[in-house]
């Protein structure tokens, strides 16, 4: 089992997003939808156990609006 060394967080391009909602269906633990169907992403890095699902959600997005981004490591 590879060790996830980098932390990633989910982000959405709000211009591309068209509220299909696949992401919220696939990873409801960290993606919710607002009253108009647009995604509300939880803050912080994606929990390791949900990482594969998060990648799938990124792949499935019909508008390619969802993406994973390396969480900037805060400088000490």
């Amino acid at each position, binding site marked *: 089992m590879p060790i996830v060394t980098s932390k990633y967080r989910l982000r959405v*391009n709000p*211009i591309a997003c068209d509220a299909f909602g696949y992401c919220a269906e696939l990873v409801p633990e960290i993606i919710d939808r*607002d*009253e108009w169907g647009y995604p509300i992403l939880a803050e912080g890095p994606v929990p390791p156990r949900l990482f594969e699902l998060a990648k799938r959600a990124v792949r499935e997005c019909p508008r390619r609006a969802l*993406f994973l*981004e390396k969480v900037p490591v805060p400088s000490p």
Partner: protein
Amino acid sequence: MTATEPQVAVPRRASASRVLAAWHQTGRADIESHLATHGPLPVPRRGDAGWGERLVRDVEDAGLTGRGGAGFPTARKLQAFRGSHKHAVLAVNAMEGEPASQKDRALLSGVPHLVLDGAELVATAIGAHEIVVCVADDRADSAEGVHGALGERAGAGLSRFPARLERPPGRYVTGEESALVAWLAGGPAHPQFRTDKGTALTIKRRPVLVHSAETLAHVALIARHGPAWFRTVGYPDAPGTCLVTVSGPVANPGVCEVELGTPVASILERAGISAPISAVLVGGYGGTWLRSGLLDTPYAPGPLAAVGSAVGAGVIAAIATSSCGVAETARVATYMANESAGQCGPCVFGLHAVAQDLVQLARGDGDSHLLQRLTHRLGGVEGRGACGHPDGVVRLVRSALEVFAGDVTDHAHGRPCAGWNRRPILPVSPSAAVAVGRWH
């Protein structure tokens, strides 16, 4: 277009006279007056390779921050753009999307040559090969001023760069950097999504640096007089002067130049307060309300931030106690919702819903859950657009709920104050104005 359009009054007796000096002293915008007031433009000599770096260092030492609204340190922006950028473009942002601001209009019709001087200096320093001055398509005065000045410079053999005037559509968000560049690149003037705000904007792979007109005017003065001179007035960490647009119940509304750090109350007093003021909208329509008790706050980034406000686009729009802050905010929110570029769901739907809630509140029509719903929605809209537009509205509305708290409670209980149906003070489009109530 605007319900009440302040005349571009630029009183010639002024508190500070740097950027507007030529206008104050001569009342004319032509090149002779400009050169008579400021002297020649200090252009680099041939082969002076370090000139650009010295200019950037001077700007840094002077502590100049962007006057377009973001307040970013200008030198840092210049430094990031230096290096041999072949075919870079310098865009002068004089779009003035804020309806309550007239300073770009004052600059371009009163002292266009100072702005163009600054543009040339910056273009030289960053290695740009082209200057594009952007004036909204509904601002005829500014356009004429630029056009005339460009013609004069060409005639006097002073243009060292190809410089042209462009007229992008005049909407609230079209002055946003990425929207402006998108339009210059040939598309609609929609703000762009950038994963990393640091990546350079480009037009067909040519990098574009965008600076506001006022910032460039200050650069032109720093190049002539040096950073030490720049710092002789101003506020600690906020040196120099800036342009503000004063409106509301004052005898002399209009654009004036003030030293940073002047208390807001003094700025208003100099404009001649004509009625008791309940609050002042500071920054712009994406700014915040300042209650009357805090008008002693020095007008500078630090002190304003301490009270939850910011300099923004230099708007100082007061409303009298006879006006209704809730109604004014509702109209502005409606206007801002209509000015959304329509690209992001949370902005389009969220701002519309927030505006509707506010209109109901202003009319006293709201249900018992209105405030709760409004607060929840504000939290939902914030940070979920591609640009800062929705965030500005959230900021404005939250400050209104706080500053006009008493009125808000009355309105929420169906007792709107007397002023809600009055003529709007803050300029908005007619459709936004009537959303709340008729005005006579």
